[in-house]
């Protein structure tokens, strides 16, 4: 609405700027010669002033006066008439065309280029808009803006941390969990969240820092299911299969019947027992993981990349491995290589069948990948 009103007002103003002088009687105008005369008279006066100051001697001054007077005489032959007012049809036609052309050109060109229906969207107003209408990105941005101005709001950090993790912004999640822990004091939920976020930054490898976080969580709340599950996973990744099996078995024993952790724990237990039976060596060895924890950021990245490449190669040779495919796809997503993730997903779905394929598809959907049917 504001746009249409302002546009119409501006148009009226512009049209008036052209129209007004056309309808007004032209004022009297000086012929050009009278302007020249004024200049020459000033020059004469300037000569007098310079003589007075002594910067011009009398002969020079006389010469200058004669020259200027000669120029004034030259003007006499050039009466120079001032312009006349508008006359005849041409002026009227030209005037009308000029007045009309302003709105026509303006609305025509704007019609091609403009987006009159798109309102201004100042960031502040977007952040304050009704949350129900907002996209996830907007909600996160709003929370971030709030936290930027109130960095001591522990609750805020606590709320945003899991959201970050869901959005795949694991590093931000780690930072948010750590800040919330500092401001609100540790809790089992936050510590385990921190551990999960840390594990996500390293591509699913539960490193030393993450283990420490989970252990703190268990210390705060001895039966904390998620933490216990991850601690078992850490053991499994370090190839401490017996210890992992014991932890999962113990966890299964204490979980209530309706716990969401029951399914994954059962599956993990089956897998780890199969592994023990095969005495195979899945994933990185304990040394690898310890090394990863001690490494610098860049080196760790390189190591993870190497491991993922290894896994990828292994799956090419031996594609009938559901958990392997899931790990590969998740790793690619975490590393930000979505194209590779998509490609791995395609290969995995082609290689697997039944429940394993469904599970891989479910994981892919939860990671935001597209699953072709």
């Amino acid at each position, binding site marked *: 609405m504001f746009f249409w009103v302002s546009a119409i007002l501006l148009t009226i103003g512009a049209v008036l700027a052209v129209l007004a002088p056309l309808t007004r009687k032209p004022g009297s105008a000086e*012929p050009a010669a009278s302007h020249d005369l004024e200049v020459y008279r000033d020059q004469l006066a300037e000569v007098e002033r310079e003589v007075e100051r002594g910067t011009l001697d009398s002969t020079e001054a006389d010469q200058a006066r004669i020259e200027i007077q000669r120029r004034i005489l030259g003007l006499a032959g050039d009466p120079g008439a001032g312009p006349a007012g508008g006359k005849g049809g041409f002026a009227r036609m030209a005037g009308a065309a000029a007045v009309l052309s302003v709105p026509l050109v303006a609305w025509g060109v704007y019609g091609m280029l403009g987006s009159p229906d798109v309102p201004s969207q100042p960031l502040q107003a977007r952040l304050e808009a009704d949350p129900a209408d907002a996209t996830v990105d907007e909600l996160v941005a709003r929370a971030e803006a709030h936290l930027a101005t109130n960095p001591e709001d522990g609750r805020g950090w606590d709320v945003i941390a899991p959201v970050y993790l869901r959005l795949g912004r694991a590093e931000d999640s780690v930072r948010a969990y750590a800040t919330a822990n500092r401001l609100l004091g540790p809790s089992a939920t936050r510590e385990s969240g921190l551990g999960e976020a840390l594990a996500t930054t390293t591509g699913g490898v539960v490193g030393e820092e993450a283990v420490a976080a989970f252990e703190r969580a268990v210390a705060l709340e001895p039966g904390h299911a998620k933490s216990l599950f991850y601690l078992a996973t850490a053991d499994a990744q370090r190839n401490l299969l017996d210890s992992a099996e014991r932890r999962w078995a113990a966890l299964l024993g204490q979980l209530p019947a309706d716990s969401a952790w029951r399914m994954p724990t059962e599956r993990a237990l089956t897998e780890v027992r199969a592994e023990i039976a095969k005495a195979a060596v899945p994933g990185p060895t304990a040394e690898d993981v310890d090394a990863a924890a001690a490494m610098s950021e860049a080196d760790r990245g390189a190591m993870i990349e190497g491991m993922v490449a290894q896994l990828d190669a292994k799956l090419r040779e031996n594609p009938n491995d559901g958990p392997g495919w899931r790990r590969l796809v998740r790793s690619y997503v975490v590393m930000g290589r979505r194209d590779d993730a998509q490609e791995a997903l395609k290969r995995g779905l082609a290689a697997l069948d039944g429940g394993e394929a469904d599970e891989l598809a479910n994981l892919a959907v939860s990671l935001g990948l597209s699953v072709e049917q």
Partner: protein
Amino acid sequence: MVETGHFALVLALALSMVQAIVPIAGSHRNDARLMAVGGPAAVTAFALVAVSFAALVVAYAQSDFSVLNVVENSHSQKPFIYKLTGAWGNHEGSMLLWVLILTFFGALVAAFGRNLPPTLKANVIAVQGMIGVAFLLFIVLTSNPFTRLLPAPMEGQDLNPVLQDIGLAIHPPLLYLGYVGFSVCFAFAVAALIEGRIDAAWARWVRPWTLAAWMFLTGGIAMGSYWAYYELGWGGYWFWDPVENASFMPWLAGTALLHSAIVMEKRSALKIWTLLLAILTFSLSLLGTFLVRSGVLTSVHAFATDPTRGVFILGILVIFIGGSLTLFALRAQSLTAGGLFQPISREGALVLNNLFLTTATATVFVGTLYPLFVEAVFGDKISVGAPFFNLTFGPLMLPLLAIVPFGPLLAWKRGDLAGAGQRLLAAFGAALLTVLAVLLFVDSASVLAALGTGLAVWVMLGAVTDLALKAGWPRVSAAVGVRRLAGLPRSVFGTALAHFGLGVTLLGIVGVGAFEQEAIHSSKPGDRIEIAGYALTFQGINQVAGPNYVEDQGHFALSRGDAALGTIMSSKRLYTARGMPTTEAGIRTLGVSQLYVSLGDPGEDGSIVVRVWWKPLVTLIWGGALAMMIAGAISLSDRRLRVGAPSKRWKQPTVVAAE
């Protein structure tokens, strides 16, 4: 608000079309009504572009990320002042600023040109309108700052960190005021050619515009030079970069124009020079715009470039430069000859000045465009740098500087060179003494450095001599002299101060060029770096977080002998949004000289490379430019430059037509 700005821009385009056509048709048919359309149209076009520009600035201030231009050049966490300046820190916004200033000058001509003869005024405004149409079309069609982006992202990509500096708030607007100010002179020249007559009053009207544009351009170039000096972290103040040259060429031509216009006003001579220089100066401004915006040259001003833009501006360039020069070729013959003069005279000196300045402009032009030419013709890629300009521009400037003090002392028409020389003896003696003193007392001074210092002193004292002579010294007593000095027209002070400023700048250039010292050290905390009698002790580095960057600050304790002189802080910043590092040099001004400390890369063993320069007299470079700017302002305030209306006595009786 955004769309209102967009609409206002398009409306300004429509109005500029009227402004470009109707008044000129009116002057052709001698129709006062049609001619009168120009003024209000020009003022309204300015108001509309101002609305448009304000809308863009508001969009930046509010971080409206539904505007593509804002997304590409802003960030919600950026300090507020840089959100505002970011509006013109990019191609689209800076072109809008360009047009804003163009229409501003058009409005000024309309508002202050009440005393202009109507046909001249109509033609001038129409020519301004044509330039406006060309550049508004350019913006609307190829560089529209109001392009929307939907859905709007939540965050922008941030402004190039090098541009996040107060320099950006000042440098482009000043520079554009200069560039575009010359469009008024161009419009006056073209208008005179269209009419086929050039009035005595013409030069009077052109002079203030030239002066104003020249003043702003001087300031803009100096500001840009200082900005590059402290921001780029390598302590250079002039790189002969193509874009710098692009602003320097109109300055050289504009300086010649300024001097020509004086002759034309006083003596009606040098009409051809003045017209040609007016056309040339603005053409070079347009060329500068083309070089910067098209990206045909490798330059530090690497805005995003786009071939269609280059072609468009090239078209504008061809139309305006070609058109005006054709008009010049057709009409210049019909201009009546002006006053005659002897070769040795003020006029003669100014012709020589013009000759030197235009030739210098030509060498810069060749040096700037030769690589383009070679690449287009032979396919070779070459670069022309400082050595070329030192070898060509330098030898042209030195004789010019040497004759500067003579000019104001020569009389019009027929001058007395020997007499002028005699009166300059004192200045010459002082300059000679300076040369000797530098050779004797300054270690490491070369003959060239001593001569350069002497030349600078000669130019400065020449300006002082001019002022003293005009006040009547030494013929009159000091008291009378002071009284007469106070009575001198302001433009006399302007001339003297501008020439003095030139000498000051030269002194700065010679000082840095000849006596600069440099030390590079790989330093650990506690290390001492000694330079030019000062000692810097490296105290270490700490990390600090800024609003949108993190920086490593290196601290140095400065001392001379036993006296501690505080600390210097030099840092390296990393702007997080673009992951882009910048060097923030630590600069300490000591008198008119500066110590310049720049941090390099950390080594493996925890040390860091530190580069320190001693830059003697460096601030004089910009101090001289500032003096020239002030000189321009003083001259501009001279009552005599304000063109008065023909007085009532001479006015023709107003005939009221019966209607």
